[in-house]
């Protein structure tokens, strides 16, 4: 069973990373209003929220399983507080986890209603550094990081993620240009 904790640690980490990237991409599509005609806006928003929550849940499972794997040797404090004692490749993941918490929890409807939109939006943008730190964590601490399959999948995800990011950046630029005109 000990080895299975290790396998699950790796697999939940990979799935959580993919879900976080997917949530970010959905958010870019939704916020840029580039959703097409076929699906309604609430479909995109609902799925964006779902993917974000799933990413956080799988990240929590990833941390729990790595803690249960005694051979990894991570203490509870190592999972919650980034420190150099176990190496910053773990610390980046811990910081990313807290950033995801900060992003996801205020998006719960009851909390979001009480926040000014500008504050909520600024907090929500923390998802971008969170995903970047997730990538750094996976590249540095990932046992499979230097395998050919991982490298190709990583490049594929980065490539796919560039499109919604570009769409979002262009939409922001267009909105600013329109507002100034």
């Amino acid at each position, binding site marked *: 069973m000990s*080895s299975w904790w290790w396998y699950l640690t790796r697999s939940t980490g990979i799935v959580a990373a993919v879900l976080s990237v997917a949530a970010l991409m959905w958010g870019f599509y939704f916020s840029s209003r580039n959703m097409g005609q076929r699906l309604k806006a609430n479909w995109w928003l609902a799925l964006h929220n779902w993917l974000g929550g799933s990413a956080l849940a799988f990240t929590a499972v990833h941390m729990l399983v790595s803690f249960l794997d005694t051979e990894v040797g991570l203490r509870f404090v190592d999972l919650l507080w980034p420190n150099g004692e176990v190496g910053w490749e773990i610390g980046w993941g811990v910081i990313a986890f807290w950033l995801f918490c900060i992003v996801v929890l205020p998006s719960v409807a009851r909390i979001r209603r009480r926040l000014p939109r500008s504050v909520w939006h600024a907090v929500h943008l923390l998802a971008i550094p969170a995903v970047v730190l997730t990538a750094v964590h996976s590249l540095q601490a990932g046992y499979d990081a*230097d395998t050919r399959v991982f490298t190709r999948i990583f490049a594929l995800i980065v490539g796919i993620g560039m499109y919604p990011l570009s769409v979002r950046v262009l939409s922001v630029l267009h909105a600013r240009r329109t507002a100034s005109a």
Partner: protein
Amino acid sequence: MSRPIDPLLDPRRNERPAARPTVRPAAARPSAAPASGGNRPLPPPLPSSGTAPAPRVTPRPTGKRKGPARGSKVASLVVSISSTLGLAALFSHQDTTSAASADPLLDNGVTGAIDATAPPTTPVTTPGGATVVTLDPASTSPSVVATTAPPASTGAIADGSYLGAPSTNRWGTVQVQAVYAGGSLVDVQILSYPDGDRKSVAINQRSLPSMIDDAISIQAADVAHISGATYTWRSYKVSLQSAIDSARASSGLS
């Protein structure tokens, strides 16, 4: 007259539909409505006491409303869980396969920059010839045989090689040997390190030389962490600290 197939060709498509009757039934018209209302939609009649019929109230559904993207949410959850389990099974299969087809050349041929030349069963003679260290493969405790008496109350560690205890982690065992000359740590020899797979060999060949240099420079086992080699780093510290403790004990230092 036959109707064309293409509706755009239908000559009647631009005709305006016949005017709808604007006069509503008298019973539905409120008494206060202006007579010149035309085809403007009229508000529904207000409920009044007595003769007016009670408005029909459609009961609202009491069940949970079906949320948007419900199917996609279920699909993403199923895909995520199945991917997690599938990847775990794939990793398990890979480990089983790599363990079965371990390359025996790795154990003998790959030493790289690591100074792992000391065979465990051969006595190791120090550069100064002062101490002989032997390692019994069946024993896990370090054994140090000093051929010269340790210097009494000089405060320096006697020259020689001192074996550290093996430290086992997930990927294998790390065991080091500390070499002292002139009272200071001059070398750390790696007797064993995790080399069961190519990744472990690559990681340890990259990290161990840095740890050796670090230990020599700080004259202690508390070397800086090397990113990506946490397991080896921990085991290296444990084994080297054991060797240093052994050296100090052999030299009469507390």
